[in-house]
């Protein structure tokens, strides 16, 4: 072992190094503080499929709320077409990418159960919107009460066919969709005893197939007096595509539909569809981001936050047409469909 004298130069060098390290540590710390202050919550909204026009409104709504909040890094991401397996892959990808919160419109309540629970187990805040996965560990479901939506459709048809007896027909999309089956259940509980459901068609959410089924059914059943469209798939065409429906509506057939998307409004304007029960499409994104952001900040919400069920008829269809006319951009839609953010409980 050798004895070593500590020179003044060594002392000076050590002091300089210590001061430098301290400054570096302080600088690093302040950067971290600034980084923490600038932290943005990574929030993703996952629709069933990007190809469904109804979900574009949710994208715009999410963008609008994220811009208002200022501390949200917003992502609208999902399968190109509705597919539960692809949606599972999307959610797993978001978990891996370290998202703080995810809102999902579940393609299949059971298939999405496990990825939702995986995300929750990793501390990610998860809610469902539009279509729920009730057995999962999601915090909140934000959407319409499908059962009540179906009941409202039946009540509207009861009113339109007051005093009449006869057969009606139902059109739905997929047999496996929980929200659609709930609407059908709701219809059946409230439908007048004078009205009999002669049959139900399922169009696989395919517009062309829906058009074909409505026309076939009306020709085969000339005595039908009512039609309830559990979803509006055939109406995403144009009035010219459904000549039999249009003609029969003029001679007494009463049609009640669901949704008030831009494409279906001409059917209400020309009186083919007498009433349609709507949902808050823009709110799917706007309020989902509100709720997820609130949950990340420790706020509480009830397990089910219901949406309103507005009814569009010939009396107020012009108002909705104007809303859609003004909604060509995210900012335009925000102005047209503006609503107050949901408050925590």
């Amino acid at each position: 072992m050798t004895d070593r004298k500590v020179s003044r130069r060594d002392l000076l060098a050590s002091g300089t190094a210590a001061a430098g390290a301290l400054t570096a540590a302080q600088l690093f710390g302040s950067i971290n503080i600034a980084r923490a202050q600038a932290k943005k919550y990574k929030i993703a909204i996952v629709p069933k499929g990007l190809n469904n026009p109804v979900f574009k409104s949710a994208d715009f709504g999410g963008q609008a709320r994220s811009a208002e909040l200022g501390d949200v890094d917003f992502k609208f991401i999902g399968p190109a077409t509705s597919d539960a397996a692809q949606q599972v892959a999307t959610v797993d990808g978001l978990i891996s990418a370290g998202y703080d919160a995810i809102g999902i419109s579940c393609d299949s309540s059971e298939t999405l159960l496990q990825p939702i629970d995986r995300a929750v187990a990793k501390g990610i805040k998860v809610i469902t919107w539009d279509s729920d996965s009730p057995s999962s560990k999601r915090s909140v479901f934000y959407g319409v009460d499908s059962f009540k939506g179906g009941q409202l459709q039946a009540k509207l048809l009861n009113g339109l066919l007051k005093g009449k007896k006869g057969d009606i027909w139902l059109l739905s999309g997929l047999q496996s969709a929980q929200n659609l089956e709930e609407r059908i259940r709701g219809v059946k509980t409230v439908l007048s005893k004078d009205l009999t459901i002669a049959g139900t068609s399922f169009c696989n959410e395919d517009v062309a197939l829906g058009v074909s089924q409505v026309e076939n059914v009306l020709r085969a059943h000339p005595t039908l007096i009512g039609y309830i469209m559990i979803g509006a798939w055939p109406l995403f065409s144009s009035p010219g595509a459904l000549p039999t429906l249009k003609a029969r509506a003029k001679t007494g057939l009463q049609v009640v539909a669901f949704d008030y998307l831009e494409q279906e409004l001409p059917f209400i304007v020309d009186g083919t569809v007498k009433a349609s029960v709507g949902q808050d499409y823009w709110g799917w994104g706007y309020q989902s981001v509100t709720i997820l952001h609130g949950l990340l900040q420790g706020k509480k919400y009830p397990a089910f936050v219901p949406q309103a069920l507005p009814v569009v008829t010939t009396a107020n269809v012009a108002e909705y047409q104007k809303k859609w006319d003004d909604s060509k951009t995210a900012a335009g839609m925000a102005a047209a469909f503006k609503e107050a953010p949901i408050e925590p409980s």
Partner: protein
Amino acid sequence: MRQTVTDSDAESAETDSPAVPVRRPSRVTEIIAIPWVGVLGVIVLLAIFMTVKTGPIFLSPDNLSSVALDFSYIAMAALGSAIVIIGGGIDLSVGANMALTGLLTALAISAGWPIPLAVAAGLVVGILAGALNAILITGIGLIPFIATLGTMSVFRGLGTGIVQGQTVNAANGFTVIGQGYWGPIPISAVILFVLTATTAFLMNNTAWGRHIYAVGGGESAARLCGINVKRVKWRMYIAASILGAIGGIVLAARLGSATPSNALGYELICIAAAVIGGASLTGGEGTMVGVLIGAALLALIRNSLDILGWGEYWQDLIIGAVILITVSFDQLRRRLRRV
């Protein structure tokens, strides 16, 4: 009617050897030998059953013209699928091609383009789609299943990306193609019959079509016969895409709108129509008339189930079962023919 290269070779062999006594098949055997005769029989049985069950609704001109309106666009695309199948290939991108071409045509129309120009633009997109399939298959050497599986996703994704998932409205004069009638006959059905007659003529009476049969019957043999196999494949994939594009444009006109999700899964319906109509998935066999009848059967089954109000939850199963039964009977017929 000559169905396969082997058959035509056999025929020429017969004419070259007059000394060998040849037993000519009876008229009945000749009729049974036509691949789509069995399918036509199923349609007749269906019509009888429906008439007994529901009265005159099924065979009413109103219902039949409506069925023709609804199956025409699928049958147009199925003609293309059959050409590829006869040539020994497969095209899984046809449904996505229909959606993309319909979407872009509708976009052009909504942007104010004259209808003929918008339709021409849609057809050009169809040609480009077919060219991409052909490049991947003949240039890069991908097997058709994988190449068209990839382009199916590319075409569908391209449509979704361009319109961001939105529906494009095309409800103006353009819709006459898909909604209009000439007397009691839908215009789209007339287009379909013209396309069927044209493709049948090309496939049966020109080197263009006979080379497709030859390549489907055996690529190596076709090559040895001096046929440019790559060129034949280019032709058949582009022809299939053009027919798919026409189907997509007619579908958009039928609905008066177009969405990226239109024609979802139609590739399988087109393949089913071709196979029901007598096309062999091993290539070299099939007719355009058979495809037309195959597509008609599928449309009539769906129409019947709608009219009957049967099988709310079982429609797909019933349709699948009818496809399997029809194809199984056809297979049996082929075996009996060989015995």
